[in-house]
């Protein structure tokens, strides 16, 4: 391609009934349009999955246009309306990540509107020409993996995680939430199989992706085997062998993370900010927001989530204690979901970006509301990058400290909210923070009723790192929600936005059991605290 003018690659997804025929008619009538447009026929515009659009960009497209029947005249009743809603959410996400939502366009063109088809294509190509090329992902150069290399790596993993000490007592399997429903799954056998060191085993093992990495096995193992660490390492190996997990949303979420890792994009991740909140560019305290703005766009159809309230509330609480935290638009995803899906390479790129950013801000302390970000910095970043120069603190500890210092006060007599508290695995078992959230709940005047399984024995929300969200996960969610509901509390509080997303998702649609048994709202702890602070 010449350097003079950029010629974009455009993928046009056309429906079978209107989009594709309108292109045919343009052809029959010899109405020219730019050859940049390559048409991919789908049954309906509603067939187009957001993941297909993002993958097209990942694979070299600079713009994607979806063409379906006129609104209200869809051959499949409402496919185009569904497509429009989905694409609106995807566009929002494109803007947050910095991919530019103008790269996506939806058009509703009747089969007979050949001129409009050609005109639209001309316009879109011109628009993408002006926007410029989409970021390109580096081509992966695969190292030749030999049995020897794998065996060496697995051996190292076995040693590092203490898996060698496993005496095959089976306690891990009895406490494992996945094994409870997936009878073929057992943490122990994954270790055993890997000791055989066979590439074929690793290349085909589905169990390493089924594990929810909740670490209840770690906490119960009499020999302190680090199963989840072992799983994390094995996943990186498996991925190199082409063994991939089943990712939620068609892998959309991880794809965005890869874009963040591989390109410097003009992000817009502070859209949640409101005028009353005080933040700064430089300072002692850095508030690491995490992926919440992305999730807010992806789950935009689930209004009950209100995810953007989480960072708003966190800043509100800090402001109330006289703290103006550093919040950065250049923050990238912590990489949790990449490393747990075996993508170490891109994880490291994200890590480098975040560490550089925090260093530049001059912060001495980084505060996290998200348990996953905390765990990733605390364990994975320090594993790969050595000891960090700044202090890592979870918001629960941070706020509790502010309360003890008298800087943050909740109004008297707020004790109207009754709640139960869900220990997310990343905050609890992974980071060993069990008491501060409970102390915080007390300090804020919330009536706490505990569930049956708490702290290191807390049940799992079913899903981690956006994968293997299957029927086992559904059962775990039902189980947890039943536990929560039976406390009689008004709501279930948790610090983890993903626990909130997963648990509330499970009860939002069709249920295998009586809705009465599980119907309890899940609420983010930070949001609940901020609301109490403002209540009179």
């Amino acid at each position: 391609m010449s350097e003079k003018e950029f010629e974009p690659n455009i993928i046009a997804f056309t429906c079978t009934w209107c989009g594709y025929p309108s292109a045919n008619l343009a052809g029959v009538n010899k109405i020219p349009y730019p050859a940049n447009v390559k048409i991919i026929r789908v049954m309906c515009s509603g067939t187009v999955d957001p993941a297909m659009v993002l993958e097209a960009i990942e694979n070299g497209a600079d713009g994607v246009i979806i063409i379906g029947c006129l609104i209200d005249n869809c051959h499949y009743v409402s496919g185009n309306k569904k497509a429009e809603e989905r694409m609106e959410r995807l566009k929002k996400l494109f803007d947050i990540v910095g991919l530019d939502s103008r790269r996506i366009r939806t058009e509703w063109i009747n089969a007979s509107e050949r001129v409009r088809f050609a005109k639209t294509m001309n316009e879109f190509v011109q628009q993408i020409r002006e926007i410029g090329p989409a970021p390109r992902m580096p081509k992966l150069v695969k190292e030749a993996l030999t049995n020897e290399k794998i065996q060496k790596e697995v051996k190292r993993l076995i040693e590092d995680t203490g898996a060698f000490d496993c005496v095959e007592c089976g306690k891990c399997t009895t406490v494992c939430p996945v094994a409870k429903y997936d009878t073929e799954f057992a943490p122990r056998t994954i270790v055993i199989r890997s000791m055989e060191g066979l590439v074929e085993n690793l290349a085909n093992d589905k169990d390493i992706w089924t594990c929810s990495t909740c670490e209840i096995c770690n906490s119960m193992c009499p020999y302190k085997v680090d199963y989840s660490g072992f799983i994390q390492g094995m996943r990186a190996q498996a991925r190199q062998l082409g063994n991939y997990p089943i990712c939620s949303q068609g892998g959309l979420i991880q794809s965005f993370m890869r874009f963040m890792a591989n390109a410097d994009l003009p992000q817009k991740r502070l859209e949640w900010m409101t005028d009353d909140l005080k933040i700064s560019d430089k300072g002692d305290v850095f508030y690491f927001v995490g992926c919440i703005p992305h999730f807010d766009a992806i789950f935009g159809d689930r209004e009950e989530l209100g995810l953007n309230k989480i960072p708003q509330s966190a800043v509100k609480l800090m402001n109330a204690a006289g703290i103006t935290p550093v919040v950065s638009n250049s923050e990238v995803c912590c990489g949790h979901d990449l490393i747990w899906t075996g993508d170490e390479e891109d994880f490291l790129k994200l890590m480098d970006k975040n560490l550089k950013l925090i260093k530049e801000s001059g912060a001495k302390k980084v505060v996290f509301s998200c348990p996953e970000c905390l765990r990733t910095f605390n364990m994975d970043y320090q594993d790969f990058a050595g000891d960090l120069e700044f202090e890592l603190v979870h918001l629960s500890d941070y706020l509790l400290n502010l309360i003890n210092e008298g800087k943050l006060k909740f109004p008297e007599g707020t004790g109207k909210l009754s709640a139960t508290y869900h220990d997310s695995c990343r905050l609890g078992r992974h980071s060993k923070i069990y008491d501060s959230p409970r102390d915080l709940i007390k300090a804020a005047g919330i009536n706490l009723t505990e569930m049956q399984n708490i702290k290191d024995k807390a049940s799992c929300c079913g899903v981690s790192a956006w994968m293997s969200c299957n029927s086992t996960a559904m059962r775990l969610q039902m189980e947890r929600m039943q536990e929560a509901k039976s406390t009689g509390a008004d709501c279930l509080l948790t610090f983890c936005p993903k626990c909130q997303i997963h648990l509330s998702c499970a009860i939002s649609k069709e249920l295998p059991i009586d809705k009465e048994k599980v119907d309890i709202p899940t609420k983010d702890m930070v949001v609940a605290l901020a609301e109490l602070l403002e209540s009179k």
Partner: protein
Amino acid sequence: MTDDTSKGNEGEAIGVFLCGCKGEISKFLDLDAIKDLISRVPKVKSIGIHEALCSREGQEYLKEEMKKHAFDRVVVGACSPNIQGIIVGKALEESGLNKYLFEQVNIREQCAWVHPEKEIATRKALALVNGGIHRVQMLTAMEDIPISILPAALIIGGGVAGMQAALDIARAGFKVHLVERTKELGGRAYKLSMTFPTHNCGICCMQYCKECVFTPKIEDVLQEKNIDIMLNSEIEDIEGGFGNRHVKVNTPEGAKEFDVGTIIIATGSKTFDPKRIPELKYGHPDVLTTVELEQLIVKEREKGTGVKRPSDGKTPKTIDFIQCVGSRDKTKGNLHCSLVCCTYAIGQARELKKLIPDADVYIHYIDLRGPYRGFEEFYDAAKQEGIQFVRGRVSDVSAKDGKLSVRAEDTDAGTLLGIDSDLVVLSVGQEPAEGSDKIVKMLHIQTDIDKFMKDINPMFPPELRRGIYVIGCAQGPKGIRYSVDDARTAAAEAIRIMHDGKVMMPRITARSDEYKCRGCGRCVETCEYEAISLVDDGKGGRIAKVDEIRCEGCGACAAACCNKAMILAGYAIPQVRETVKGVLEEVPP
């Protein structure tokens, strides 16, 4: 690269065929260059160029090549698969290739004909063919779904179209359930005093009828034993899928339920309500619609009292017909031409002129449209008889002291007219019948911009219509003859599939992957066809199950599924991904 467990199928011997389309493609694309480059793509066993793959010779050529190379996947670069793809696919199928392992790439309409620069067009065609090669490797062999067709038909609407279809189907020996919402059969045609082009009878049972050209006889329908007629009845609900639908009808005798294999929709149209154009003063006793004028003429015929205007019973001496009332009017949502109004207005004008020879009869029109054989002669006769045609849309009808005045421009003469009129006749256009929206919803029928129902193009394979046929004015304004034509062709196909008792349906349907499905029910919620249900998974949970007869293959469920457990055959994420990759890849690598 997104993670997914679905991997491509083999596809070890791919055959690629490029069609020159007798110069239509080969003149605009460098097929030899494409052949040269594509031959370097792995797994492509052979590439052939033929000047017309859809010709008899071309099909023979395909068969010979198939025999020689035993391809397990085939990509054809030719015209739109919507046109000749069926023929080419059939030739391949006859040579033993599973039809789901074949992909036709459109290098004619999408390349040769729209990109004038040969090099650019060739490069794009190369990319599309490469995309096809990537795609076929992701396809799996499948079989069509056999669908049983019950030997009974439902006909909604007892107008001319519905009656004709009912007669044809019943006479072929199948049970017909004919549902009519009014109290009598015959529809609008029954109310007409005369029809084009004989300028005579409306329907046979009318006593003034002289001859009957093509309208079916109500009497015949009434006497046909295989037809169960339900008058004053409405469809309450229709459930089920292709070939087996359960129908609930509310009749005066109570609810009736039955099962049918085919459904013919002949709900017709209603006339435009002229109150929506206030300047035409509909509501004044001497401003009538053409339908009301018909009644006056019928009354005159029966009693022989002559045509009198309603306000004072006097014989009108100046009569103005106003055309396109509610048609060709974007502001009323009706861009369409109602097709029949020019013809019937001329007919009525001639009739009035015959009854009142000294009357001045004007027809105010924009364009005279009568795309029917005999129309020109009909129009010519009207002119001979002294009907005055004035080109220009009437802007206003005023009523002062009970006197009507019509204001319009004569655009041919360029003069403004103000005609004092005794009787104004509004040639009202047509809109979908009342209640047709309910049928549209029940049977998931695609509608057009003007809300009329779309019939699936009869050029498409019959299985795509799923045993549902939209005929007559339900499709849009139509003359009687054409409605009857519709009825007969639809009936012929319905009879054929009911006679065969079975139709093979392409397996472009959704299915759920039990391993991935978590039973959340998002797919159930999103499906317009109620094709998905949650069933017990035997382990205390639930999983989604698709009724593939009901599934129409839109893939909305697949896009809605968080876990991508729902897969639309042929359009799964990995299949689309590989196609896109192939299209965007530099060839040769």
